[in-house]
Structure formats: structure tokens, C-alpha cells
């Protein structure tokens, strides 16, 4: 019996040592090149101004994480699995391939389906089917891009989201006009939510993406207004003496943080949207402004010059525990915590120039993301991979986007005037 046990033990140790005797090479570094992907032209019987594959390619390229292959460089345009020859795509160094089709259904319905292949492993990894009305052509393309992006990167795609911004024309002249606009995240399909002769400021989204708040001067002084996207509801929330600014929804959408100077100097208040009751949360003779919420809704991030210079602070709402977050440089403002609660995005002044930067709050390292000057109003995409901000180009306000790793920057074209105060929407379902 003991002998049998000994033999078993011996065999076991032998197997063990055999298994662990395989060499292990440790890879501790990478290069993080954009991933080469091929979006083959979708087979379609629908006439449309732009092919779905074009929109999907452009979306993915914009993320900076993909390097889509131009369709004219493809060796074939497969329509089905039978026509996919992985060798061809490997020659083109494509790691992934998308094929798809869009077909007319009854009425103006269109059925779009696509398949995503892992070229290197030679297998299909995703297939989806959507039915949409023809007016949602671009929406479908963004949905395809979202699905492909999520499958490959492990992060939810944000191509179906929208951006809010203020378009100013003829500012400083008697014909000045200010428009609150909403557009696709790629800047396409913009429409006007509000047209005003007075400036519009600090627009931001409700977490459900159905309402927005902003500041207007329609009463002659700053006023906080809430409205829904389809224009059926609009309400003036505050009209106090002095400053009424920087309204921001809490993550649960029930409260609004804002800055009011009704009692003297600017302080941060929280309004309960159901009861409209105000609660003052800062009490300091210095300026406290630009509030935002921690992702769990239990704290407020704000800018204050109580230390002599504008710096970013965090206030725990339950305990009133106050903590200063930024110590690098003598100007840090408009802080926004990322979804993980550990990274702060803000405006940072370095050598007299305003940049967008982010900081790891645990490891305390600061990274400047933008190389332009006068960068302001950073707003994070809901998936935390990109942020949109306002900057200047030849004296004109434009919007620019930078990836959070700083690798990709692009501008959203604005042919119509000064663009400022961008706000990236939350995920919009449906």
C-alpha cells in the first residue's frame, strides 16, 4: 500500500516537473500600434449617400485604436463566409475582417447584418443583425462600429453617442447669435436646440441623455435652464441675483449641482430636482466653482482659489470631508473624475498655456494630453477613452478630440462660426 502511494507520488512529481519544465518567456512590454482592420464594402440594394462600411471605417479610425484598410487596397470584396480567404487578408496585414449586407425589407425598413472575423485565428468572432428604418442609416453604421469596437477592445463603443456645443456667430456685433446644437459624435447631423441673441454657457447632459441643462442670459442675467431634446419641455430653474452657473446633473439624475452667488461670493449648491430645495455645500470667502460629481454620486469635485491659486478639491457630501486633489502647477481647474474614480481630467496651465491634462490620483502622475493652447471645457466620452474640448484655431473657436492615452487628436470641422463649450453625451440606448 505504502509502495503504491510512493509510486503515485513519484509519478505525480514527475508529471509536475515535466509540466513546469516548459520554458516561459515573459513579455512585459508592447508597442500598441493601431489594429489593422478591413471593413469590406457591404452588399446592398439600398441607395445611400455614404456606404455603411465607410462610416464604420471612419468611426474606428477616429478612435485611434484602429487602422482601417482602404477598400481599394483589398484583394477581394467578400459577401459571405465562402468568399473569405484568410490568407489574402493576412497578406494585407489585416488582423480583423468585417463583411456585411444591408437589404430592403417591407416599408422603409432595412435589415443590416455583419460578421466579424479574427483573420489570424481564422474564425468568426461576432455576428449581429439589426432592423432599422432608412432614416437611421448613420445610426446603424455607428451601431456596427460600436459592436466591433467592443468585441475587439473590451470597451463599450461610444460612436452612437452625441455631442452638445454652442455655436456663436458674429459675437460682439449687434447681429450676434448663439445656438445650442446637438450632433452625432462625429460632428454630423447637427441640429439646433436653442437659438438666442445672448450667450449660452455650460451646457451638460442628464445621465439618461434625454434632457440638457445650460445657462442663458435671456432674462438679462445668467439663468439656469433645463430642457428636453425634442423641445417639448423647457424650464427656468434659477434666476437669482448674481451668478447662476455650471449646472451638472448627479449620476442618478435626481439632483443638480450649481454655482450661485446669491448670498455674496460664488458657492456651490445642490438642488433636489423633485422638491427644488437648495442645499449649500461650500462656505468659504474664496471663489468655489465648476462643480462635478464623483461617479458614485457621493462627492463633489470643484475648483477653488481658497489656497491662493485655482486648484481642484473633492468634498465628501456625507461627512463634509474636504481634500485637495491637485498640487502640480499653479492653475488647475474644471476637474472631472473618470468612471473608475481614480483619474481626474482637468484644465492645467503650464508655462502660461492652458492644456487638458489627466492625473492618476493614486500614483499622482500628471499627463498633459493636448499640445494646443487655450484648451478648455474638457468633456469625457462615456466610455472614458476620448475627451472633447474647445480650443482656438487662427482666432476661431473649434472643437477637438483627444484620446485619453494622448495618441490620437482630431478636430471636428466647423464651417459656420465659433464653436465652444462641448459636452459629450452619456450612452444613449435605443
Amino acid at each position, binding site marked *: 500500500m505504502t509502495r503504491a502511494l510512493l509510486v503515485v507520488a513519484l509519478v505525480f512529481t514527475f508529471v509536475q516537473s515535466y509540466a513546469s519544465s516548459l*520554458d516561459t518567456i515573459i513579455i512585459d*512590454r*508592447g508597442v500598441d500600434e493601431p489594429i489593422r482592420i478591413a471593413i469590406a464594402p457591404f452588399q446592398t440594394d439600398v441607395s445611400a449617400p455614404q456606404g455603411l462600411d465607410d462610416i464604420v471605417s471612419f468611426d474606428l479610425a477616429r478612435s485611434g485604436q484602429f487602422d482601417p484598410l482602404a477598400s481599394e487596397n483589398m484583394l477581394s470584396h467578400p459577401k459571405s463566409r465562402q468568399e473569405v480567404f484568410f490568407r489574402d487578408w493576412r497578406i494585407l496585414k489585416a488582423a480583423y475582417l468585417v463583411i456585411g449586407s444591408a437589404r430592403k425589407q417591407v416599408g422603409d425598413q432595412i435589415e443590416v447584418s455583419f460578421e466579424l472575423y479574427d483573420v489570424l485565428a481564422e474564425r468568426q468572432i461576432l455576428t449581429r443583425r439589426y432592423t432599422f428604418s432608412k432614416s437611421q442609416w448613420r445610426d446603424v453604421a455607428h451601431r456596427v462600429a460600436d459592436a466591433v469596437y467592443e468585441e475587439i477592445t*473590451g470597451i463599450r463603443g461610444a460612436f452612437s453617442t452625441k455631442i452638445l456645443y454652442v455655436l456663436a456667430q458674429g459675437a460682439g456685433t449687434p447681429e450676434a447669435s448663439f445656438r445650442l446644437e446637438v450632433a452625432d459624435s462625429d460632428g454630423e447631423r447637427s441640429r439646433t436646440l436653442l437659438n438666442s441673441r445672448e450667450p449660452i454657457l455650460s451646457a451638460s447632459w442628464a445621465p439618461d441623455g434625454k434632457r440638457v441643462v445650460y445657462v442663458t442670459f435671456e432674462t438679462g442675467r445668467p439663468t439656469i435652464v433645463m430642457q428636453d431634446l425634442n423641445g417639448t419641455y423647457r424650464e427656468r430653474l434659477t434666476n437669482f441675483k448674481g451668478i447662476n452657473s455650471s449646472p451638472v446633473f448627479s449620476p442618478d439624475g435626481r439632483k443638480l449641482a450649481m454655482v450661485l452667488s446669491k448670498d455674496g461670493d460664488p458657492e456651490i449648491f445642490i438642488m433636489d430636482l423633485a422638491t427644488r430645495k437648495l442645499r449649500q455645500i461650500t462656505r468659504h470667502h474664496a471663489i468655489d466653482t465648476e462643480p462635478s460629481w464623483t461617479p458614485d454620486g457621493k462627492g463633489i469635485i470643484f475648483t477653488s482659489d481658497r489656497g491662493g491659486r485655482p486648484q481642484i478639491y473633492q468634498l465628501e457630501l456625507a461627512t463634509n470631508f474636504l481634500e485637495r486633489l491637485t498640487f502640480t502647477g499653479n492653475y488647475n481647474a474644471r476637474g472631472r473624475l473618470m468612471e473608475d474614480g481614480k483619474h481626474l481630467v482637468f484644465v492645467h496651465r503650464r508655462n502660461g498655456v492652458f492644456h487638458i491634462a489627466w492625473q*492618476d490620483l493614486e500614483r499622482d502622475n500628471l499627463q498633459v494630453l493636448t499640445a494646443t493652447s487655450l484648451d478648455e471645457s474638457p468633456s469625457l466620452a462615456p466610455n472614458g477613452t476620448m475627451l472633447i474640448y474647445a480650443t482656438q484655431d487662427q482666432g476661431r473657436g473649434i472643437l477637438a478630440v483627444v484620446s485619453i492615452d494622448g495618441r490620437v487628436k482630431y478636430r471636428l470641422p466647423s464651417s459656420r462660426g465659433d464653436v465652444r463649450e462641448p459636452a459629450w453625451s452619456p450612452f444613449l440606448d435605443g
Partner: protein
Amino acid sequence: MFYAARHYSLPFLLALSLHAAAAWALYQGWNPEKELLNVVKPQTVMASLIVLKPKAKAAPPPKVDVAQKQLEAERAKQAKADQAKVRKEAKSKAEQQAAAKAREEQRLAERARQAQADKQTAAELARQERLARLSELAATSLQQAIADESVDLQAGSEEQVLRSYHAAIYELVRTNWSRPPSSRTGMQARLQVELIPTGEVVAVTIIDSSGNAAFDRSAEHAVRLAKRFEVPQENALFERHFRRFYILFQPEDLLR
């Protein structure tokens, strides 16, 4: 029975001796497939050789040139001095007599100069010889070093050889690894890689997942994009270390 013993004794003995020979050969460690290790020398060693060689060879020649030039110049100077002396003698004997003392002095000086020149020549020659000897020594010791090194490698400082192959694999996989943005410091995935003796990747299996499918796939892609690795020609070495091995993906350079 005896008949059988008689008739088969020769084949029996032959068989026995053959077995004995085989047993002896095995005992002596005879290996029919054994070849000299055809080792690809590690890059680092090659680099140091390239640096050493020209130094040893290039250094001596210019010095020899300089020495020869110096010698020639010396000789030319001497010849000129001699000519001048002959001309002077032919010009006037009276002067010669009158300046007998001076001439004597001059001759003495001349002799001293000659001695000096001779000494210089000798020193130069000695220096040259020493240089030649030195460079020869350098060359032989270099050759010795190379020989030693290859002996080392051939004798199977297997560790070193493996390290150089592993370094090449590391480099190839690293440069093909694009991590997805969802990657975080602390994630790790272990993949088993299977190769055929040409070094071609025939199978990649995720043994320990990072828990993030995108991260796992990026690791798998890094190996598949590499496609083919440099592996040892020597069969046993390949079988032991490269037929199947693990790659552990463990990023340490991510921002988050």
C-alpha cells in the same frame, strides 16, 4: 541438439559479438545522430568580436609607416650632411689644414651625431619589433578568445544559447503586441505556443486567461503575427525547449 550446436555455433558467436560490440558502443556513449552543435552565436558575442577585430588589426600599420618615414628622413639628412662634407674638402686644402683643429672637432661632432643616429635607428627597430610582437600576441590571444568562446558554446553553455533565442522571441512578440485600451497593469495571460522545427507557429492556446477577452486575444495575435521564430537547428534542443513553451503576457509599461 549437438547438430544444431555445431551448425549454428558460428552465427551464434557472430550474433553474440555483435551484441557485445553494440553494448560496448552504447556504454561508451556512442550516439549515431549526434552532430556538432551548429549554434547561432548570440548577437552580443558577435558584436564584441566585430569591435575587437579592427582594433587589433588596424592599430599597428600606421605606426610602422611612421617609423619607416622617420628612418628615411634620417637617412636623407645624413646623406646631405655627407655630401656637404665632401664638397668642403675638395674646395680648399689650406683651409682644411688651417682649420685642422676645427675639423677634428667637427669630426668628433659628426661621430657623435652618427652614434646618436645609430642609437635612434636601433631604438626604432626595437620599437617596431616590439609592436609587431604585441600585435601578433593580440591577434593570437583574440583567436584564442574566439576559439574559447566557440568551445564554450559548443560544449553547450545551453543556458546562454537559450537566452539568446528567448531574447529574439521576446523582441518579436513585443513588437507585435498592441494592447487594447481595456488593458490594465496587473493583468496577465499565459499562452502555450507550439512550434514545428522550422520555427513556424502551429498552435497558440490560452492556458491562463487574464479575464479580459480582448487582452487575451491581443496576446494571441502578438504570437500569431510573429508567425515564425528563430529556433535552434539542433534537434534535441528544439524538442526540449521550443516544441512547446509558454509565453506570459504581463504588461508593465501601461499608463493605467
